[in-house]
């Protein structure tokens, strides 16, 4: 399995997906080798929960991002070649997103093996349009991957439709398998008041949580702008934004500009353990994304037993059913986001019912073991 991110290199949902899937596959007796990129203070070779992880050092760099991607694909391909000599032939080459697609295509042909590509998003979806040469190249690599792969896995039904429509891929070739969740990690007792105090949130405050990379696609700027409207009716609300990204300074400027210091708190990256503590200490989770092929954060909030408010886009519409397992709001609409938060905070009994339904759904539908079983089915079909 080739992926550019694998814990502790966690940029987005892709790392969590590969982590959850690879461990579940290993539990089912599949020998999984992960080829990924180096990360400071992390061994180049290790075995974690039965998964053999190989981190490649990128020996040659280049200021241009696309050239850098081509270079690390070369080092991944080299590592896969060496591994074939050491451990024998692989049955499947499984790559994730365009970032490792080129190495996967080369390996498919040199090793004469079947290629499976999982798409977690598309360039057209992330950027809205292919307005730059780099965007067009990424889009072309994605298309080339869907052509070369025996099967394409997408993380939601909406992404499956997008891939079939945009790349003109035959329907039989594209299989939607959602992300999974380790629900047991949310079964622990936390001292809510102590966790809240770390972020300046009082015991009686209403803690709204949001999590993600601080990039425009996540829509955090709209959520921040909705907070003054929420505060008019719920003055004890505090918003905690977990994550980091190149937009952080802009978001902090916006918070200052709206006079929301102390009401909106940015934490930067925090450990998984701290994040779980926060999920278990929050009152509401908001996922205000503008584009979200899946929406791992919403699933985590559901597993933690939180009422979740999500933009009605992409995979979020599949994970969350409006007024059954959460609340939909219009993407990029400040008034709608404020309405959603007020709806949940003003109706605590109803919010509890939504959260209970959501937790049940997370447990029943989105287990990593179920995801692994469906993935193994795709592998079997690819080998046939």
């Amino acid at each position: 399995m080739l992926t550019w991110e694998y814990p502790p290199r966690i940029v987005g949902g892709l790392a969590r997906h590969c982590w959850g899937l690879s461990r579940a596959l290993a539990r089912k007796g599949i020998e999984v080798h992960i080829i990924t990129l180096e990360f400071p203070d992390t061994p180049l070779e290790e075995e974690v929960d039965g998964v053999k992880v190989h981190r490649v050092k990128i020996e040659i760099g280049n200021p241009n991002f696309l050239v850098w991607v081509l270079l690390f694909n070369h080092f991944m391909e080299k590592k896969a070649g060496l591994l074939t000599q050491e451990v024998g032939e692989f049955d499947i080459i499984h790559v994730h997103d365009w970032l490792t697609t080129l190495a996967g295509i080369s390996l498919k042909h040199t090793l004469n093996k079947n290629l499976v590509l999982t798409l977690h998003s598309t360039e057209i979806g992330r950027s809205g349009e292919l307005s730059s040469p780099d965007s067009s190249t990424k889009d072309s690599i994605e298309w080339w991957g869907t052509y070369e792969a025996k099967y394409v896995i997408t993380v939601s039904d909406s992404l499956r439709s997008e891939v079939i429509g945009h790349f003109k891929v035959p329907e039989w070739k594209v299989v939607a398998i959602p992300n999974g969740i380790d629900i047991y990690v949310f079964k622990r007792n936390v001292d809510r008041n102590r966790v809240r105090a770390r972020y300046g949130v009082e015991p009686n405050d209403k803690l709204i949580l949001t999590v993600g990379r601080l990039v425009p696609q996540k829509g955090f700027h709209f959520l921040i702008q909705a907070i003054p409207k929420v505060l008019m009716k719920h003055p004890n609300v505090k918003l905690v934004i977990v994550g980091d990204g190149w937009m952080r300074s802009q978001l902090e400027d916006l918070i200052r500009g709206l006079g929301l210091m102390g009401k909106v708190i940015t934490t930067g990256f925090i450990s998984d353990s701290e994040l779980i503590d926060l999920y278990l200490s929050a009152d509401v989770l908001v996922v205000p994304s503008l584009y979200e092929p899946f929406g791992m954060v919403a699933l985590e909030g559901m597993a933690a037993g939180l009422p979740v408010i999500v933009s009605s886009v992409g995979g979020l519409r599949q994970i969350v059913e409006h007024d059954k397992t959460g609340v939909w709001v219009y993407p990029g609409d400040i008034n709608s986001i404020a309405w959603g938060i007020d709806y949940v905070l003003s109706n605590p009994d109803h919010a509890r019912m939504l959260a209970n339904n959501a937790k049940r759904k997370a447990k029943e539908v989105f287990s990593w073991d179920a995801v692994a079983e469906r993935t193994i089915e795709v592998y079997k079909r690819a080998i046939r």
Partner: protein
Amino acid sequence: MKSISKIVIEILNNVGAISKNRALSIEEISRKTKIDAERLKETLEQLKSMGYVNSISRKGQERYFLTPTGILVALSSYS
């Protein structure tokens, strides 16, 4: 983060300045980013204060590299 900071942090990642032994001097970064040294120093110090960049002094020269958080921020646009 302003756009110049974004450029610097992404290029540090792409050229592999991600550990002490691969740290780069201002002059080397300036050549790769095409940003003048004075402006670059200001940006790098700002990135240092944000925890995205660290530096070491080697042979009297300050050399800069990305922290683990800086690497993840650099890549945040692409995932």
